[in-house]
């Protein structure tokens, strides 16, 4: 599978590694500040709310809503040519942070701001799993 996968893979460093290890286990985790409770994404060394360095990785709900989105017609990377037009969404997680991702099981014309979504996990290679989202029906 990894031989065929030609799309860019995430840049993983010591700071973000726990996020990707959790994704591989099909868990969505975020850094939470032990001092003020702020959740941050993407990963970093300190809390942008209070500058505490006491951050812990916690599992989060995986629930959120679509904050905004865009549809790519222009192909910037050859591995996405077969997907175009394709949507990239900004999901606002219930815990606060927003992240760029893709929707599965949803047509482009059905995407709406405010749409409730839940995380799903796409094992794109043997090592890398991308958290993606699908519409919540309930």
């Amino acid at each position, binding site marked *: 599978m990894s031989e065929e996968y030609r799309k860019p893979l995430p840049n993983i460093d010591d700071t973000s590694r726990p996020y990707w290890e959790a994704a591989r286990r099909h868990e969505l985790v975020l850094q939470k500040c032990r001092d003020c409770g702020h959740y941050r994404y993407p990963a970093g060394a300190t809390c942008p709310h209070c500058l505490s360095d006491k951050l812990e990785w916690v599992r989060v709900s995986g629930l959120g809503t679509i904050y905004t989105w*865009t549809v790519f017609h*222009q192909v910037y990377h050859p591995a996405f040519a077969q997907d175009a037009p394709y949507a990239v969404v900004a999901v606002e997680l219930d815990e606060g942070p927003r992240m760029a991702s893709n929707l599965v099981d949803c047509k482009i014309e059905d995407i709406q701001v405010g749409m409730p979504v839940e995380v799903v996990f796409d094992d794109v290679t043997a090592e890398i799993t991308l958290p993606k989202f699908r519409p919540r029906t309930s």
Partner: protein
Amino acid sequence: MTLKDKCAIVGLGYTPQGKVPGRNAMSFYLEASKNALSDAGLNIRDIDGILVQPCLTDPRVTAFGLAEEMGLDLRFGADQQLHGASSCAIIQHAAMAVDAGLCDYCLCAFAEVSRSASPPAGIVYQMAGGTNAAYGMFGVAASYAMIARRYMHEYGVTSRQFGAVAVTFRKHASLNPIAQMREPITIEDHQNSRWVVEPFHLLDCCLISDGGRALIVTSAERARNLKQPPVYIMGMGQGHPFNDPLKRQILTVSGAAESGKTAFSMAGISPKDVDMCAIYDAFSFVVPMQLEDLGFCGKGEGGAFVEEGRIALGGELPTNTSGGLLSEVYIQGWVGTHEAVRQLRGDCDERQVPGAEIALVTSSGGVLSTHTTVILRK
């Protein structure tokens, strides 16, 4: 204490612009600088300060490198990279340095060689955002598109209203002999132009260009004895939201809100006193958004404001009379500074705003991440 009216812009330098192959960035910086000196009636040895916005596609040019090519020792110099917001920021720092006595004549310069750059500018402007690239999120345009979609959702602004901006500025460009795109367009042309990243049609996006610009800032007192009518710097301000738009609490208010408030406060005027605007128009929708944030209309009213002809020549607030980044040329924030100064000098021929006395200029960089404003008067 205030810097209001203490300094002036006294020289403007242009170069050939648009598609100008076979030249490096330094040649544009030098040609623009030479032309600014000639425009001001100054000698090269008068320059004792240089501020440079580094060129993204050829970052080798620095203030001190430029000074060396001009054979100049400097009393003051720096490179300032606020990306698109550099022009108005550099004018602010030049005025501060002149007022503080750190230099007498500050040369400010920039060049863009992204149209003919090798490797192509695409590598810079299509930059992939780390992890986001795994999801197919590439380029500056897509990040702006995320903001535009949210703006449409929150305030009901429409693609046709974005189109009105593109059509208006193209009409202005048709009156500008040095504009890159001079063929008039209609709303239908806008709507029928290909999608780039929704909600952007091709005609919502700025040009890609080559060209250089320079200008000279000195004290109001010195300015009165020079060749050109001085254009005084009345007010200035900055406002910088988070670099990553997805981290911003509110996506649909730009740095223009803070930047404009500070500038209006220093100038001691309000939006109704402004005769014309030069708004940083990397994408069409940022024009109504910034006009709202600057207080020219209420929040959410920008779409209707730009649709009703107010920002066209002959309207109540002629904006981007050169054609702007959408239709004149993409030399970042220096397109607006130069056009505003020329309007206040009364030097714009067919596209002159009659009786223009006060102009507001914005520049904005990143993904609406940096924002600077200057207010100028004749």
